[in-house]
């Protein structure tokens, strides 16, 4: 059939199974917004394009589907940059669609014209400028394929506004399934030998395990070879925290995974890239000359940060399934019984999280922002299922949380808990309006310590307690603020309030903000 570009775009989104998009209208995309009314796609209008991008990411992180964000040219496009970069760092499948000035105006510095294609080159998996309606359908299909295949990531499609009115031929093509792949298994037998001769193996699972959906395979591997399992920040939820061989999140703060790293005789890394956040562990690895097996979908991650002994390039599920029949399964009860004795983090925020975790469903999605509260939540909250702990792991974006929680709530249709700090919340609290408008069951815990806690802590330790610009002491009344936006709100002033306030807040099925007063020196 012959239809215009805007209709081709919407048809292609339907083809790809898109049911929700996040965005903000503007002059260059008005034809799309008009067409949108005739298609069965839910559009979530946010307060800011950055919020829309984080929401699309949250939607994707919670569901595993591609997140879609749609904005206009110029500032609409530039406001996506942080979200796209975040998706790139955390390998989140995202398709960002931006309008632009018409093709014959490109390059003339028109009103709201910006080279978003050039601007995002280093932070996308791939990108396009569509030059005719004829190539639009193919471009959208390819963009979705690229976003989801191999190592997932963001793809940008920049569409000059005249393309939306141009008529072209369109035929529905159902997308072909994207099948997981094994790319290089040369080392398979040698890896099996390494594992079979190991007495104290340790598995380190990253975000790749969640992207692949390999929870059961990792548990099976761990059980068969008697390996403890530690996870990275992005790997939280890769195996349940209640799994018998789980020992915690590797970080510069936790001790159990570090001790395990010192004592193990083989490290098996699954879908992880040895982020600099675990630098002390990385240094330990280099020093110990430990045999390291690395399984990752991205060949460029092998030997990038840590030189490994043997590697498989490919999907984690397939790699483990190839490995398992080749493993003897040496039971080592003594190694498995080893208790690495994690030193618990004790403070009011953790008390609140502990209390909350006992009151809500085990599958409840927890979203964090970035700062001390992120560490506290990541290191103490008992996460039981993949895609139920969402955090900005690589880029560390303050202000990520509320948008992501909105996307996660829409993807799951269930209650979502956002744990944020006063610093992070202030960055994007405008999106509370979006959460209220859409009646989303988001509970927002603002861990309010009147400061940028993590910055303050670093200044305390490394800058002789010179607290440059890290104390906030805002006069903001978060309860009044939340109510003015139409949300419900409470505050926790002291530890005795915790249970009572959480119980009251959990009765609400719509956005509720809890201003949690946290002592400034809590670590």
């Amino acid at each position, binding site marked *: 059939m012959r239809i215009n570009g805007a209709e081709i775009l919407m048809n292609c989104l339907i083809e790809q199974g898109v049911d929700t998009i996040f965005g903000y209208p503007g002059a260059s995309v008005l034809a799309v917004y008009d067409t949108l009314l005739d298609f069965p796609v839910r559009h979530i209008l946010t307060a800011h394009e950055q919020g829309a991008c984080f929401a699309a990411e949250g939607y994707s992180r919670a569901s595993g589907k591609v997140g879609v964000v749609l904005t206009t040219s110029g500032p609409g496009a530039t406001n996506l940059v942080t979200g796209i970069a975040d998706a790139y760092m955390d390998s989140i499948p995202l398709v960002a669609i931006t309008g632009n000035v018409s093709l014959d105006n490109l390059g003339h510095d028109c009103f709201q014209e910006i080279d978003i294609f050039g601007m995002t*080159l280093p932070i996308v998996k791939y990108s396009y400028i569509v030059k005719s309606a004829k190539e639009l359908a193919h471009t959208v299909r390819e963009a979705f394929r690229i976003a989801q295949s191999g190592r997932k990531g963001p793809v940008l499609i920049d569409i000059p506004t005249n393309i939306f009115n141009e008529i072209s031929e369109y035929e529905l093509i159902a997308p072909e399934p994207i099948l997981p792949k094994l790319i290089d298994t040369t080392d398979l037998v040698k890896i099996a030998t390494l594992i079979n001769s190991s007495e104290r193996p340790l598995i380190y699972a990253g975000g790749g395990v969640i992207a692949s959906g390999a929870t059961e395979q990792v548990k099976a591997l761990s059980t068969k070879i008697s390996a403890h399992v530690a996870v990275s920040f992005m790997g939280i939820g890769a195996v349940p925290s209640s799994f018998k061989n789980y020992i915690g999140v590797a970080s510069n703060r936790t001790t159990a995974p570090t001790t395990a790293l010192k004592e193990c005789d083989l490290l098996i890394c699954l879908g992880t890239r040895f982020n600099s956040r675990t630098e002390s562990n990385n240094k330990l690895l280099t020093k110990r000359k430990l045999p390291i097996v690395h399984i990752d979908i991205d060949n460029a991650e*092998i*030997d990038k940060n840590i030189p490994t002994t043997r590697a498989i390039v490919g999907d984690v599920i397939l790699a483990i399934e190839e490995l398992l029949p080749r493993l003897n399964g040496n039971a080592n009860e003594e190694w498995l019984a080893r208790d690495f004795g994690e030193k618990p983090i004790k403070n009011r925020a953790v008390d609140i999280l502990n209390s909350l975790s006992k009151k809500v469903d085990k599958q409840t999605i927890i979203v964090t922002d970035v700062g001390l509260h992120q560490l506290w939540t990541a290191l103490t909250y008992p996460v039981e299922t993949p895609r139920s702990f969402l955090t900005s792991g690589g880029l560390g974006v303050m202000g990520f949380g509320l948008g992501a929680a909105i996307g996660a709530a829409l993807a799951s249709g269930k209650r979502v808990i956002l744990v944020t700090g006063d610093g992070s919340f202030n960055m994007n609290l405008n999106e509370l309006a979006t959460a209220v408008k859409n009646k989303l069951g988001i509970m927002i815990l603002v861990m309010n310590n009147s400061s940028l806690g993590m910055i303050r802590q670093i200044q305390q330790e490394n800058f002789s307690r010179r607290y440059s610009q890290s104390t906030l002491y805002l006069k903001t009344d978060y309860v009044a603020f939340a109510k003015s936006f139409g949300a419900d709100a409470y505050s926790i002033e002291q530890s005795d309030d915790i249970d009572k306030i959480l119980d009251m807040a959990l009765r609400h099925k719509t956005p509720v903000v809890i201003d949690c007063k946290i002592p400034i020196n809590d670590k």
Partner: protein
Amino acid sequence: METEKRIISILVKNQPGVLSRISGLFSRRGYNIDSLSVCATEDDRYSRMTITVTGTKATVKQIISQVEKQEDVEKVLDFDEYAVVFRELLLIKVNVKSSERSQIVDLCEIFKAKAIDICEETMILELTGSTQKIDAFIKILIPYTIIEMARTGGAALERG
């Protein structure tokens, strides 16, 4: 750590932005490019980028895997200097008095260079060859005062 010079030949799809995408990858990951050239191929859907880099073995491996994973990259070949035919082109304008012309012609003879423009006081010479040969030719011309020169990156093809 020991560094080595490698010639990397990249067959890329002719897509908008492909040059920025690849060269940007090198700059943002801190890889040094010694020379870069882009040319058409026998198939007009593709271009060939020939990049020479200096780096440790690990860096070169990392460069190749980073380049390989780009959507526009069809094929990456890592050449060491012996397995390929590698040529650069030099155009060089030197100040030559008429009395010195025969000396220059002798040098051209030795290097298999060509004189392609002769004026009263200047000559333009053309030479193709390996990086080392071109370096040597330039060095030998320095006493005659080099006015300006243009030098391409390398073009490389696998032997055999």
